[in-house]
């Protein structure tokens, strides 16, 4: 394993420290327990947004803390959900009196830890609502699983719910728009090569030179199945078909197309995937109204990509376009 790290056990702490040094004008890093808030938290009268999960998905979540998006991010150990004793103080720290929304990706660990934290924060007098994100169509038969995972759609939920909170929506309204985004978003990912968790020191799985994993999550876990290598257009068609089958868009509907890199894939390749996806969507009669291309929710240095499609309505477009000022996403300010 070759990584730009010092002690494998110190990766999260040191990385967050560096992040805090680079973005000290935007965020405050709290240690013991570890969480990150907006520098100006709590914002009085505004609904607070808290998200979190294992580390290793950077810029998610800390990179989305700032005006128009999250009020706090709670990073766990690498690929391990954070604990209630981090989530609770983060929740209290960003409550501006209007309550707090937890945005939780649907993994057993995240769900259980946020659930406990929400109960305890409520006991401390903060109203909490939870938006569960479960957009991964790779998990087909959710009756026999822990349910669909939360993946790329999380970024879109955080942006749009964040904008709703920023314009003054109340607690239930912010949670409702977050859930509406989740209901209209679908994702699917693939890997060319696995990532290496620092404390493990070996790749999470081994792929031969002519194999790829389809239907991966964001934790370096193996995917639903392994297939022979395909070219970018073939891979794109495969991911998109799974998404569209599930989303069942109507002709003429507007979508946001999000092509995401898993961390070790160059931007040039993401553009090649975007090219195909945009063309296929157009051919099928859908309108790509907004787009996002880049490394926004990653699995350390995994090579691969995910595609996310969000069915847009006018309010979502307006909230997507609303100003945002975070380390990783910024416009209008």
């Amino acid at each position, binding site marked *: 394993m070759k990584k730009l790290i010092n002690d494998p056990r110190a990766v999260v702490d040191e990385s967050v420290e560096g992040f805090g040094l680079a973005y000290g004008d935007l965020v405050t890093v709290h240690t013991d*327990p570890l969480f990150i808030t907006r520098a100006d938290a709590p914002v009085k009268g505004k609904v607070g947004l808290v998200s979190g999960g*294992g580390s290793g998905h950077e810029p998610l979540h800390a990179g989305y803390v700032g005006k128009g998006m999250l009020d706090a991010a709670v990073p*766990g*150990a*690498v*690929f*391990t*959900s*954070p*604990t*209630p*004793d981090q989530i609770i103080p983060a929740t209290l720290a960003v409550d501006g009196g209007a309550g707090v929304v937890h945005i939780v990706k649907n*993994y*057993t*660990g995240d769900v*259980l*830890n946020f*659930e*406990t934290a929400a109960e305890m924060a409520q006991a401390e007098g903060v109203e909490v609502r939870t938006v569960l994100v479960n957009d991964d169509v*790779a*998990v*087909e*038969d959710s009756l*026999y*699983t*822990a349910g669909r*995972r939360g993946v790329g759609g999380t970024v879109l939920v955080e942006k749009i719910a964040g904008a709703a909170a920023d314009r003054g929506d109340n607690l239930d309204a912010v949670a409702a728009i977050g859930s509406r985004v989740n209901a209209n978003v679908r994702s699917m990912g693939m890997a060319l090569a696995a990532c290496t*968790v620092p*404390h*493990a020191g070996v790749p*999470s*799985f081994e792929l031969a030179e002519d194999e790829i994993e389809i239907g991966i*999550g964001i*934790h*370096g*876990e*193996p995917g*639903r*199945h392994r297939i022979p290598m395909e070219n970018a257009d073939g891979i794109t068609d495969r991911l998109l078909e799974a998404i569209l089958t599930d989303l069942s868009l109507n002709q003429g509907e507007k979508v946001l197309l999000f092509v995401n890199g898993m961390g070790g894939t160059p931007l040039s390749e993401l553009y090649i995937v975007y090219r195909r996806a945009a063309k296929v969507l157009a051919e099928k009669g859908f309108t790509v109204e907004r787009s996002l291309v880049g490394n926004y929710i990653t699995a350390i240095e995994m090579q691969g990509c995910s595609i996310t499609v969000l069915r847009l309505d006018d309010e979502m477009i307006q909230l997507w376009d609303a100003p945002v000022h975070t380390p990783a996403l910024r416009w209008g300010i």
Partner: protein
Amino acid sequence: MGLDADWAMSWLRAAAAVLADQRAYLCDLDRAIGDGDHGENMDRGFQALLAKLDEAPPATPGAALKLTAMTLMSKVGGAAGPLYGTAFLRAATALGEASELDGSQVAEALAAARDGIVARGKAELQDKTMVDAWTPAVDAARAAAEAGSAPLQVLEAAAKAAQDGAVATDPLVARKGRASYLGERSAGHRDPGAVSTALILQAAADTVAQA
């Protein structure tokens, strides 16, 4: 050795030692069907517990289990943190202020722990989770206790059943937790949480036996 506070502390220290020792093995199991961190998570939690036990040694077995619950809840994270946290908390509540445990108290504490895990995680038997170790352990412990066995025999029965239960997860297709995302591909691998359960229970039995 009587199952008093000192025993509880010896047990938890032995559990910490065996989890540290098996860290890489548990990670390997988790890498095959999960995200490879189970050993790391358990080790982090039990190392933190060692420090707490030194700071303020608990006065009863129940207090020791409550401290364990709180520490695991705040240090382990992932699915295992809240599940083991709840398990130890329910067991502590079941034991109350008892200063030394008999066989049926041991069995009831194990049952309370298992019920807590099921309440939190909603897993059923054969879902390929730690429940597949806990439930046979509870059944074996209860049978031993009802037959009037001493605490050592109750714990030994529980540990052996947990270990058999862990082995029996090999062919199962996971339906809960991260391994469930793999579908059929999860078959042929052992569930890491079931194995850590067996290790912790074996440490409990060993601590009595070696006293």
